[in-house]
């Protein structure tokens, strides 16, 4: 499947009307991807509790197609929910590299955005963007579950802008 998607823009570029095919392909693939963003359960600290609340019945993430996966091998999104401590930095990198592409990173909460209330600590990484490329930042301490839903909706917009042709 990956080889087909890689070669598709080159093939379509050579054929007449190819750009129309590409646009359709883009639309379909992006629709499929954004409607089934599967995050990995990666709660670190307090924000993890609000993340769990958003999976529960009141805020119900499942209606967006968001379904938590415990293994990074089966996940599209990693929600860094909580403080990134220096001891935990290497495990985070290891887990991120185990995720297959396309993969996205959502920094959830002040600590993941910039270190939060602990930014001047000797043991805290000042934001997960020092380690990983972040796609969406959700601010709050902790952010409400609605904010997390908003963050995933923003991620869906970002996925919409992805193009096969690079």
């Amino acid at each position, binding site marked *: 499947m990956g080889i087909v998607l890689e070669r598709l823009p080159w093939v379509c570029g050579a054929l007449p009307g190819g750009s129309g095919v590409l646009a359709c392909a883009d639309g379909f693939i992006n629709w499929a991807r954004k409607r089934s963003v599967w995050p990995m359960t990666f709660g670190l600290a307090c924000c993890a509790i609000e993340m769990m609340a958003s999976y529960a019945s009141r805020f119900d993430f499942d209606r967006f197609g968001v379904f938590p996966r415990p293994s990074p091998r089966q996940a599209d999104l990693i929600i860094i929910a909580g403080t990134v*401590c*220096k*001891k935990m*930095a290497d495990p985070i990198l290891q887990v991120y590299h185990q995720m297959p592409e396309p993969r996205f990173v959502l920094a959830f909460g002040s600590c993941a955005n910039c270190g939060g209330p602990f930014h001047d600590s*000797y*043991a805290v*990484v*000042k934001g997960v963007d*020092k*380690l990983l490329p972040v796609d969406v930042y959700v601010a709050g301490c902790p952010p409400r579950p609605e904010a997390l839903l908003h963050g995933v909706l923003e991620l869906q917009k970002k996925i919409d802008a992805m193009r096969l042709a690079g």
Partner: protein
Amino acid sequence: MTDDEVLAKLAATFPKADKAETQIKGILTLRAASGDDLVALARWLKDKLGFDYLDMITAVDHVAERKAFELVYCFTQLPAGQRVALKLETPDPGSVPSLTAVFPSADWQEREVFDLFGVRFQGHPDLRKILTPDFLEGHPLRKDYVHAKDRFD
């Protein structure tokens, strides 16, 4: 058992130990004269006076004033809930006997004091870092700790 009774029994068994200069408000705070007495005192508190539950072990950095760390221990008598605290000064750098033989729950708390202050505990089964990352050098809770930039800063 009232505070005075405890002090009277203490004076009879451990004449060198006495009441600490700075009392923790609301808790009778004793002072051990030296590390040699510590284990015997803890065992006496546990077996003879019934303070069989180790509440907390921590340290306070007084190196600037007195070139010493002050170790603070707190014991509780279950189920009545009466508490007694014990302070011990140890010079910096210093080592103190471990209480793990008397109270197994001293294990991690002593490791924490070692990790954050650098106080060593003789006789501890496994004295190594517990909270800070391996690459962090130094003992962060010391007042003279200067944070050296690492690869995450």
